[in-house]
């Protein structure tokens, strides 16, 4: 059981095996970095396509890709045909405009903000500014994880919330609006936005690992049992090895152990 | 712009005596260049009010070019240079900037009927409407009068609202004339208006020209010598951008003073 895309390019490339991976745009950059290192020492070509979690899962199921990447939990139907491997965790940070004075929030406050119970920063110790909530799209792994941990449902999200696709867009949106608050992955944090600590705990990898910081979600590799080749298995093994996990940590993700 | 009251009636009754007729158009030493190429050479001509002046001459001699200088249609062509004097009603038309007024006063009918893709009514009402006339009754009146004036009313009165492009060539040409008349111009320029028409339509248009003479000053370009003979009072013979001879029509056709004119009108030319 080899993938069709893999077969095709494999033939044209000679004997080098091509490993086709596709899926989440959040997992993609990490996977690309891992693949870059792995290809250097192994006779293999890894194709990574960042096309979204669902498309990647579909590709894995129907054999277009050997491995799918997902940043959301698998649905029950999907679990029937797929095996999943957590390759790393992704920390989620609540961010605001750098000028915002609010640097710490309790989990309840976060919930109140996103469900619209609190609508002005002055109620949270900030300036007298209306709050503009920025969320990811429904179905996104970050959003699912964030909502589950904070404790509200999609239906409760304030209706006027801006919905942005992708970490990059949330970051750009928050960075250009002093009213805004949103949440993004650890790895995308930079000076343009201001991270908020939750219950006084800073968003760092250590704090996630020692369970002090609870906002995180898994990065998944999924595959159909029969479709996974030895080469594919070896790549997964490499990722889970200390060397692979070190690369993950380097690029901003949180290692599995 | 004081719209339509370019009163014709007032001027009407003074056309009795040819000699006393006013100079309507006076052209003096007109030279015209298309880029480098000179197309008109020192053209001088006086055109009297309420006369029909025919312009004849072989192809490419500059008849159309000259006609188009009279309402400054040549302005539309890139690289045209004009010098000399062209005075209409005492005003040098190349000194004024009001081309619109000039063209309202000097109407034009083209060789190929060029009605717009609209109804017959809209074609004729087009000019007046653009002059700002909105009143329905007034427009109706103008359209009817103009179509009657162009001897086409009876043929089209029942289909005013249908497309003008459905008419025959001869009908279209007369609607073109109606369209020009609707502006109540004083001068009407016609560039081979019947060359696309059959003899009957031609006859109608010629009769029309004869009757229009009472009210308008008409300048007509024609290839048809018989036509020139039939409709015009004066005839100018053009050759290579020059006016060779300009005189009473019957003089031009019976005893021209220039050999070249004679050669041409008797068909011995070339």
């Amino acid at each position, binding site marked *: 059981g080899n993938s069709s895309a893999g077969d*095709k390019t494999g033939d044209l490339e000679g004997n080098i095996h091509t490993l*086709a991976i596709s899926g989440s745009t959040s997992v993609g950059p990490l996977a690309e970095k891992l693949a870059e290192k792995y290809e250097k020492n192994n006779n293999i070509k890894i194709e990574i396509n*960042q096309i979204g979690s669902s498309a990647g899962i579909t590709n894995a199921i129907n054999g277009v890709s050997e491995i799918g990447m997902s940043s959301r939990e698998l649905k029950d139907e999907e679990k029937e045909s797929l095996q999943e491997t957590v390759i790393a965790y992704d920390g989620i940070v609540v961010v605001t405009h750098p000028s915002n004075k609010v640097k710490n929030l309790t989990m309840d406050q976060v919930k109140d903000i996103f469900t619209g119970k609190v609508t002005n920063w002055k109620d949270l110790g900030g300036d007298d500014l209306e709050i503009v909530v920025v969320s990811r799209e429904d179905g996104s792994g970050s959003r699912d994880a964030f909502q589950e941990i904070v404790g509200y449902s999609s239906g409760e999200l304030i209706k006027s919330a801006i919905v942005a696709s992708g970490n*990059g867009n949330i970051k750009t949106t928050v960075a250009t609006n002093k009213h805004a608050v949103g949440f993004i992955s650890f790895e995308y944090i930079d000076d343009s936005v201001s991270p908020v600590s939750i219950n006084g705990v800073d968003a760092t990898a250590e704090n996630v690992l020692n369970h002090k910081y609870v906002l995180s979600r898994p990065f998944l590799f999924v595959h159909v049992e029969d479709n996974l080749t030895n080469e594919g298995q070896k790549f997964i093994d490499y990722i889970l090895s200390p060397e692979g996990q070190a690369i993950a940590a380097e690029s901003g993700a949180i290692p599995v152990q | 712009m004081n719209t339509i009251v370019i009163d014709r009636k007032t001027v009407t009754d003074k056309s009795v005596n040819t000699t006393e007729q006013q100079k309507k158009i006076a052209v003096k030493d007109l030279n015209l260049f298309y880029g480098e190429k000179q197309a008109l050479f020192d053209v001088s001509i006086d055109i009297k009010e309420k006369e029909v002046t025919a312009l004849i001459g072989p192809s490419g001699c500059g008849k159309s070019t000259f006609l188009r200088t009279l309402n400054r249609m040549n302005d539309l062509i890139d690289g045209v240079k004009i010098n000399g004097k062209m005075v209409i009603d005492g005003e040098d038309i190349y000194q004024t900037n009001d081309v619109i007024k000039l063209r309202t006063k000097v109407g034009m009918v083209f060789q190929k009927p060029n009605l717009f893709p609209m109804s017959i009514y809209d074609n004729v009402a087009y000019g007046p409407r653009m002059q700002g006339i909105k009143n329905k009754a007034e427009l109706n009146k103008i359209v009817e009068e103009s179509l009657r004036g162009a001897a086409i009313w009876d043929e089209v009165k029942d289909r005013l609202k249908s497309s003008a492009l459905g008419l025959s060539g001869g009908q279209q040409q007369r609607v073109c004339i109606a369209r020009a008349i609707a502006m109540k111009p004083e001068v009407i320029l016609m560039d081979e208006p019947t060359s696309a028409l059959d003899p009957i339509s031609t006859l109608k248009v010629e009769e029309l020209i004869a009757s229009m003479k009472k009210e308008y000053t008409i300048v007509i370009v024609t290839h048809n010598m018989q036509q020139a003979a039939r409709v015009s009072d004066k005839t100018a013979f053009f050759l290579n951008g020059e006016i060779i001879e300009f005189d009473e029509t019957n003089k031009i056709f019976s005893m021209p003073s220039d050999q070249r004119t004679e050669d041409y009108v008797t068909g011995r030319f070339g």
Partner: protein
Amino acid sequence: MRKLKDNILLGLLWFAAFLTVAVLVMIVGYIFYKGIGLISFDFIFGDYSPSGGGGILPMIVTTIYTIAISLLIATPIGILAAVYLQEYAKQGRLVNTIRFATESLTGIPSIIYGLFGAVFFVTTLKLGMSIIAASLTLTIIVLPVIIRTTEESLKTVPRTYREGSLALGTTKLQTLYKVILPSAMPGILSGLILSMGRIIGESAAIFLTAGTVAAMPASIFSSARTLTVHSYLVTQEAGDIELAAAVGIVLIVLILILNLTATFISKKLNKANY
């Protein structure tokens, strides 16, 4: 009164043109302002690195591949389809319906085309995620544009040309490619340039069918990443606007080159007619 109206309208015409040009200048200016700092030899020809975003040569190559293949397929089909609709088919209900459907399809968001391509070309036809699958999808996207613009320019070819040619005992086909198509060329060409723009600017339909592999494509059956997809990805996930703009600069230069080439070719074609 009329004069005032004229002057207002003239003013509006100038204003509209000014606005268009201003928008053009602003957008291009913004893209250059943001991105020019990143442009370097290495940015284009260096090795691609996932972290830096440089080394975009593979994406340039992929972009050119997709344009070439899509236009190579869509141009003949589109032009010939337009010829059929305009010159051969009996004008009536059926043709109008086809026309109507074609027009309506120009408004379907490209993500739907992308999903269709992913199901039909990638999976059903087993082309895999590949340049060819993306190009076929793009072909469908630009067909309506080519058909409509070609039809419009065919309409403007004078009837007298057709009659003149047919009266010489030539066939419809000969008349078509010797007289009609050459006269319709300028219009067809501007349609092609618009289509090219649409292909270049497309992202959603491409990443679902060609994928996002950031490597030099080995063949048209390889999965690969176009410049636009690249700029999409870096905006979407990393929010790296400088990088997206730098890719934009490369795109603009590429479009310029392609447009100039197209104009040049059309001039050549026109010359051949004289």
